[in-house]
């Protein structure tokens, strides 16, 4: 059923021409209609139903007969079940009716169904998506906004829609998500990462800390990211030393700040005694000869930049004291803490 409108005109030798309808010849000057290689008297080239000329020469042929557009539609063409108009061209036969392709639409969302297929659901033609939704609703379930199939397990809600969780991965760690995933600032995170957000974010790499958390310098750190500011070696639980918001290994703290006690070689936590190019903790500031504790007010002598209490100095061999005195005189006088 593919009608071909065919306006006719001729320019052939008339003696041999006959009308395809009545078989008679043509009068000279008579108008001859030529259509699809055949000739007609003008009065013969009419609709087989209403016998009227074809408007604009347009006709439709069915079963060897020609019809005008109107009669052809009335007699043979299907009507669209939606708009009631005749369907010329592609007819969609569905739901026991005919449809223009553009009129056959999902009854819920009105999307065209001609090319995507449809599902009959309770006397309605529905797209797969809507069908799934209806079905899911009936089952008390959701339909995934991405793949449009029913979500059998727990759905993942994201930006107001529901999804199969497995369509997403965690923004922080990349793991495939499950329904426990959390939305934060329009991003999805696995529960572990989300739980750790806001609290333990590594001060070095800025990512959530999933395993052991080191808390130091007022921040949290991955164990392997808490490292000496100088040599960048992680402390891995070894002692570290803090200075001006940075952490250092013992070697570099000492190298940079030199605040280890000369006796115990530990970083001095409390008060520091500084003298003779060295530092001491309160407990260890003592005479280097007799180990008696000294304090800020104790007067002491100096020998090779070690503190010597007065009693001990007086026990030094006289010739040694003489030499030490001579040396002090030779060197520029600079040690205010050293009585002479």
């Amino acid at each position, binding site marked *: 059923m593919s009608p071909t409108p065919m306006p006719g005109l001729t320019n052939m030798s008339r003696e041999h021409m006959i009308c395809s309808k009545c078989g008679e010849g043509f009068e000279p000057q008579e108008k001859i209609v030529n259509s699809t290689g055949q000739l007609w008297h003008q009065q013969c080239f009419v609709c087989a139903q209403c016998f009227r000329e074809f408007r604009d020469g347009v006709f439709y042929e069915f079963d060897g007969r020609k019809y005008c557009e109107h009669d052809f539609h009335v007699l043979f063409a299907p009507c669209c079940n939606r708009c009631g108009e005749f369907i010329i061209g592609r007819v969609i036969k569905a739901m026991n009716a005919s449809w223009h392709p553009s009129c056959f639409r999902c009854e819920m969302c009105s999307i065209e169904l001609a090319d995507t297929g449809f599902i009959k659901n309770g006397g309605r033609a529905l797209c797969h998506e809507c069908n799934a939704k209806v079905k899911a609703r009936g089952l008390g379930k959701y339909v995934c906004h991405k793949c449009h199939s029913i979500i059998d397990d727990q759905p993942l809600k994201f930006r107001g829609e529901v999804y199969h969780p497995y369509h997403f991965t965690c923004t922080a760690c990349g793991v495939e998500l499950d329904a426990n995933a959390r939305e934060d600032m329009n991003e999805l995170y696995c529960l572990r990462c989300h739980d750790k957000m806001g609290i333990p974010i590594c001060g070095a790499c800025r990512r959530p800390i999933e395993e052991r958390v080191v808390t130091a310098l007022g921040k949290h750190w991955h164990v392997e990211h808490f490292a000496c500011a100088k040599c960048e070696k992680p402390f891995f639980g070894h002692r570290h030393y803090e200075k001006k918001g940075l952490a250092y290994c013992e070697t570099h703290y000492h190298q940079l700040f030199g605040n280890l006690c000369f006796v115990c*070689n530990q970083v001095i936590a409390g008060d520091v005694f500084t003298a003779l190019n060295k530092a001491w903790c309160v407990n260890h500031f003592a005479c280097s000869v007799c180990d008696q504790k000294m304090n800020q007010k104790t007067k002491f002598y100096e020998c090779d930049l*070690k503190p010597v209490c007065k009693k001990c100095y007086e026990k030094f061999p006289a010739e040694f004291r003489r030499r030490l005195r001579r040396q002090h005189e030779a060197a520029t006088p600079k040690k205010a803490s050293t009585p002479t």
Partner: protein
Amino acid sequence: MSKAKKVLEEARELQNPEMDLCDRGIGTFEELSGLLNMTYITRLTLSHNKLKSVPPGLANLTNLEILNLSNNLIEELPLSLSSMPKLRILTLTINRLYNLPRGFGAFPVLEVLDLTYNNLKDSSLPGNFFMMETLRALYLGDNDFERLPPDIKNLKNLQILVLRENDLIELPGEIGDLPRLRELHVQGNRLTILPPEIGNLDMASNKSVFKFEGNEWVPPIADQLQLGVSHLMDYLRSETYRVLYSRYQTNKPPVPPPCVDKAKKVSRIR
């Protein structure tokens, strides 16, 4: 004798881990009965006594971290000391040591070794002396060293090296390989030139001390020292000095005579 005994008894009662036995007239460890069983003590100070020797059994004090034997009459040490597992500070200032026992350098954790004012010389040191990698400070002032072996470079943690008033004729360039050295005392020796490697040391920083007076420095070095330690360090690193130093190597400046009269040292008394 009774004085020391009283102190020991009191200390035992209090279980005080720090034992002060200074200036008690102690002549021998035998006067300190029971001391070697007090294994909990961490510090033992026996300064200003009259001890002539140290018994090997002292090493029984396995918790000892600090042993101070300053100003005694000790002529010999037992090798056992160097096996003490926690000994960090050993002070032997003002004694009469001419030698150290063979194998003495085996201390596992020694950090400070003070041998000031003894009679040690180049040959006094055992072969493994410079294997003490944990050493932070080595005091060898007032001894009789003329030269130090290049092995000194093994003391990677050394921060303080005192060589005051020895008979040093030259310093090994390997001192320049001690990355943490921040105190170098070489006053009162017989030095004339310095190895250019000394220029590697960070002696010009305000955390460092370089004591150099009382040597017969060649004029170019004396001039730089006049200007300051940082000038000397720059100079030692210069190409000029490198050339000068190699010339000095083939044509050494005369060795100055000893500048310290050691005959009066009490450590010499036999």
